[in-house]
Each structure stands twice: as structure tokens, then as C-alpha cells.
């Protein structure tokens, strides 16, 4: 994994090739993460491209992307590994059927049978173990803030030593550490122990010029005038500071795509009101903005 990128500029170019526009800060942090073999911890508003970075990295480096979606109550059997219990039972029954006629089991048979049961082929590799085996690859641990506190402790060992210990089989370690991207929406503060192991970066909503660039890159079919109008309006919505959930870049793209689909060539109050649902996901927000659309569009 050494020297996948030669510098921050190289990261920008490589990610740009996949349609992901990273600014200098993010490029520097990504470069550091690949060089120092540290996970990147990305925080920021929803829809600012945290998850997309992992996808773009995998594409740019032509590596496999392994994703672990966190949720409340997730535990080691869903993240690291589990034993395939039904297949173990099936195996046991098969052995039993085959040896029915044979003489009584010796102690050695029993031992062999037990070790057979906890064999590689009955092991279900969950994303983290999978990533360690498949490395080099990109491991995306998405929305870590949704998992319980205890789950972070599981990750600590993996993220610092790049190995998982399975009592029945031994230790699995990665030959080259995977590139790990953790994302958090900050609904819960993460433990400092986890944060210390990561490179921390806060992704902010992009500025006007960058967001326009993103829309143009991602949606080449949308006319320049329409793209500019949409981005300007979204930036204004974000700046107003009165929305429950300001639209992210993902929403901007959705909206532009929606306008393209309905065949609009420019944004006026009528068509904006009709497609507003692509950008605003709360009734209160929609109502407030609908009432002041005229003003927002002409301002």
C-alpha cells in the first residue's frame, strides 16, 4: 500500500478522475491517511460527501470497497465474524450418518470432529474480517455514531493492529492495512480513544463555485444556466439558517436531476415549488420556503 499517492495533488487528480472533487484539506488528510495507515474519521452534515469519498477512493485506486453500515445494537458477530450454525449442524448429521455402521468413536475422532466444526469453511466473514483478508481494499464504516458505545471498543483493536483474533482459528491479520474511512453524523460524540487513532476531518458544505463544479461534473446533461440557478438557490437556503435540515450536496444533485427530468430549462417559482421535495425533506421547511420562493429567486 506504500506510495499509492505521491502527494496531496495526486489525490485531488485521482479523485477528480472519478467525479469526486476534493478540496486541498480533504486531499491532504486522505494523502496522510494512506501514508500513515491511519483511518480517516469524517464528520459533517448529512449529504456532504462523506460516504462518497470512500466510494471514490475505491474507484480511483481500483480497490474493492467493503462497507459496514452501523446501527443501534450492532455487535461483533455482525461486524467481525460468525459461525455458520446451520451448516455446522448439517455437517454433524452427515458425519453421524456416515459413521453409523462403524465401530464406536475413539476420543481422537471426537477431537477431530470438533476441530472440523470450527473450520475455515464454516466461518462467515463479516465486513471487518473480510476487509483484513481482502486488503488492500477500502473499508467504509458508515455512521459509526449510530452504533452503541461498546461497539467502538471492538473497532479499536482492529484499527490499531489491523488484526482480528478468532479463538478457534487463530489471528487473522492484514498483509497491507486497508484504507479505512469512518463517517459520523455527530448524533453522538465518539470516544476520545477512537478519535485519537484517526485523522479527523470535518466536511463542510462546499462554497458556490465548488458546488457548481460538482453539479457540472456529476450531471453534464444539466444546462449551465439551470445548474447555476439551482446552486445559488441552495446556497441561499443554507445561508438563511432557518431550516430544520438544510439541503446537502446530495440534495442539490437530486434537485438538479429532478428539474432536468421534468424538462425545465430555467428555475422559476412554479417549477421550483413543484420539485422542492427533492431538496427539502421537512414539511415545515417546505412551507416556509414555498412562501418566500419569489423573494429567494429574485434576490
Amino acid at each position, binding site marked *: 500500500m506504500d506510495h499509492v499517492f505521491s*502527494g*496531496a495533488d495526486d489525490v485531488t487528480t485521482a479523485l477528480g478522475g472519478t467525479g469526486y472533487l476534493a*478540496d*486541498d*484539506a480533504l486531499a*491532504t*488528510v486522505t*494523502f*496522510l491517511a494512506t*501514508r*500513515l495507515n*491511519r483511518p480517516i474519521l469524517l*464528520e459533517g452534515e448529512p449529504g456532504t460527501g462523506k460516504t462518497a469519498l470512500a466510494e471514490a477512493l475505491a474507484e480511483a485506486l481500483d480497490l474493492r470497497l467493503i462497507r459496514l453500515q452501523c446501527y443501534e*445494537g450492532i*455487535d461483533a458477530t455482525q461486524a467481525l465474524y460468525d*459461525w455458520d*450454525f446451520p451448516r*455446522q*449442524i448439517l455437517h*454433524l*448429521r452427515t*458425519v*453421524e450418518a456416515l459413521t453409523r455402521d462403524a465401530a464406536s*468413536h475413539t476420543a481422537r475422532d*471426537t477431537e477431530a470432529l*470438533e476441530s472440523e*466444526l470450527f473450520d475455515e469453511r464454516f466461518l462467515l466473514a463479516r465486513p471487518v474480517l473480510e476487509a483484513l483478508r481482502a486488503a488492500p481494499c477500502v473499508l467504509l464504516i458508515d455512521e459509526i455514531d449510530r452504533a*452503541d*458505545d*461498546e461497539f467502538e471498543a471492538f473497532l479499536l483493536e482492529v484499527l490499531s493492529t489491523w488484526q482480528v483474533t478468532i479463538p478457534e482459528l487463530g489471528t487473522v491479520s492484514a498483509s497491507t492495512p486497508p484504507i479505512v474511512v469512518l463517517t459520523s453524523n*455527530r*448524533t*453522538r*460524540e465518539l470516544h*476520545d480513544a477512537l*478519535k*485519537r487513532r484517526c*485523522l*479527523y*476531518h*470535518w466536511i*463542510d*458544505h462546499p*462554497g458556490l463555485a465548488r458546488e457548481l463544479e460538482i453539479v457540472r461534473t456529476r450531471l453534464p446533461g444539466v444546462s449551465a444556466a439551470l445548474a447555476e440557478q439551482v446552486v445559488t438557490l441552495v446556497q441561499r437556503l443554507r445561508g438563511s439558517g432557518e431550516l430544520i435540515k438544510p439541503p446537502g450536496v446530495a440534495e442539490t444533485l437530486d434537485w438538479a436531476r429532478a428539474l432536468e427530468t421534468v424538462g425545465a430549462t430555467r428555475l422559476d417559482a412554479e417549477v421550483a415549488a413543484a420539485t422542492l421535495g427533492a431538496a427539502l425533506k421537512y414539511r415545515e421547511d417546505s412551507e416556509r420556503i414555498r412562501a418566500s420562493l419569489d423573494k429567494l429567486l429574485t434576490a
Partner: protein
Amino acid sequence: MTAAPEPEPDELLLGFARALRAAGLGVTADRERTFLVAAATVGVGERAHVYWAGRATMTSVPADFPVYDEVFERWFGGEAIPRGRQVDVVRPPVRQAPLDSGEGQAGGDDTDTLQARASAQEVLRHRDVATLSAADRAAAARLFAGLTPRSPMRRARRHVRSTNGSVDGPATLREQLRRMGEPGRIHHRRRSVRARRIVLLVDVSGSMSPYADSLLRLAHVFVRTVPHVEVFTMGTRLTHVTRALSERDPDRALAAAGRVVPDWSGGTRLGEAIGAFLDRWGRRGMARGSVVVVFSDGWEREAPEVLGEQMRRLAALSHRVVWANPHRGKAGYEPVQQGIVAALPHIDDFVAGHSLAAFEELIEVVSRA
């Protein structure tokens, strides 16, 4: 021989890390090391590179960024840094939360010294909770003794045997192996449960003084009957009163709390008090996964946006935030006070807290959390 030698780059960078630590960021030795390696990797020649390397390795929340920027500019001087847009996060000064009862006991009649010490809003008064009439005391004690709080539960990591739930593979398999693979009963298991911690933050400022006695009695009932309860009073200061309230007899417990709390019926700095709780206790684990109950009328003297930000942090750390407002139960009440407006988006349950019936409802809400 007069000119001081040019400092080594590493020395300069290490000094910067130390300056950040002095400014209050959590820069530990391993972070310093990571920063030095990171800076060497991106090259120390470019100012922006050092900036981003440092920010990625030595900050961990957006609230750290303004402090980081300031120290960076002071340390390395020169022109402005080409950084991204700033995240607008208010970082309130950390307020000391004295635990000792020294000042409280000194209060009372020593008004001259007190006035000299107190700021305009900070009226540190010592309230004598021992002056309840005998009849009131007996009636209240009877009524509060009838309250039966229960702990809110959470799923624990451990599994326990159960008659239903998911199949317990290992246990089933072990039993079958004991009988040479002969199939038998299928064992089931479920997650065991553990009691969540309950944190009670009681506002004892002037506007809440008619309720302070009852609220502390309620807190006492919680402390005595349920495990893992922590109680704090908030006024112009934050005071940890769990130990004082752990006395068995309610009246003696209240008297003990009265001796500890230095700021009965003073002003309120809700935002700062909650911030102090989070900085000193909450973030280190007390608030994590717990149910936090704030007893207050939301009358915030100073910046309501500070309260909003601190409530956001509180909500992000804890499992559930309950706000009990004595005025909530009154006819025609609208949550219009600046403080409560700022806090409302971060509250899970907004309940009344003015009567015994309301306390029963609150207990129900907490135990269901």
C-alpha cells in the same frame, strides 16, 4: 555568537503541539507523535500542509477549530491560512464547579464579603431548608414516600438463556456434542438488560425557588430507590449533590444538600452549567447512554444560543433528554422563554413538573426511556 540558533523544525512543531495543549485541546503524547510524522510526510515547507496535518491529527470536534486557528496563527505568524469555511460553534468558557461546602457555609450573615465577591447577577444566597413547618414536612414525606421510580433498561452485550428469542447455537451444539450428536432441545438466548444511569439536573435559581424543595425530595427518592442516579443542582454554579442526598432520612438529606449548595435562589446560567456538567462529568462517561432529566423553567439570563449548543451536546451524548418544566402544567403556558426555545429541538420529552401527579408522570417517562 549573539544570535540564537534557528530552532529545528521538529522543535518548532512540538512547541506548537504544546501550545495547543496549553490552549485547552486534548493533545496527548501519541497525538503529538502522529502530528510530527504527518507533518514530515506532507513536508514542512508548505504552510497549508502543516496546517491541515495538524488539524487532522490534533483536533477532534469542530469546536476545536477556532482555538486551533488562533494558536496556529500566533505560532507560525504570517498571512491568513487558506482554510475552509469556519464551522460556527460556540465554545463557552469552562466554569469551575466547586464541590466543597466551604463557601456555602460561610454565607448566611456575612453579607459584606459576599457582595464583594458576587458579580451583579451572581447573588449567592444560602437558603435554610430546615425551616419547613412540621406539618408540611410530615405531609410531604408521606406523599413522596409513595413514589416508586424504576430504572430505564438498555440491552446489554451479554446473552442470557431464555425460553424464546434467537437460537443459542453454542449451547445447543454443546449439549448435542455431550450426547454424541444426538439432537435434543434447542436452546434459546436473548440479550440481558442493564439499568441505564439517570442524571438529574435541578435548577435552583430564584425563579425556581418555590419548587426547589419538592424537586430535591423527588431527587432523593430517585437516589434512594434506583441504582446509578446522579444529581446536580444548577444555578450560577453547578454542584454535585448525590452524596448529600444519599442519606436515608429525607429531611436530613435535604438539610445536607442545603449545606452543600452555595447558590440557592440566585441567577441562572443554564447553558454554562450544562456545559460545565458535560465538560467535567458528562463527556467522561456519566452522560453516555444515560437518561438526563433537566428540571428548569428555561429562564436563561444570558445567551440562549449557548444553552442551545450545550443541549445539543447533551442530546448527542445521552440516550434521552427529558425536560421537566413546572410551568408546563399550567393553563395557557407557551414555551416562549428564549432559553426553552433554544433547548426544545434537543429535548426528547417535555413534561410538567409542578405537582405530585406530574412527578408520577415524569417517573413513568423516565422508566420507559
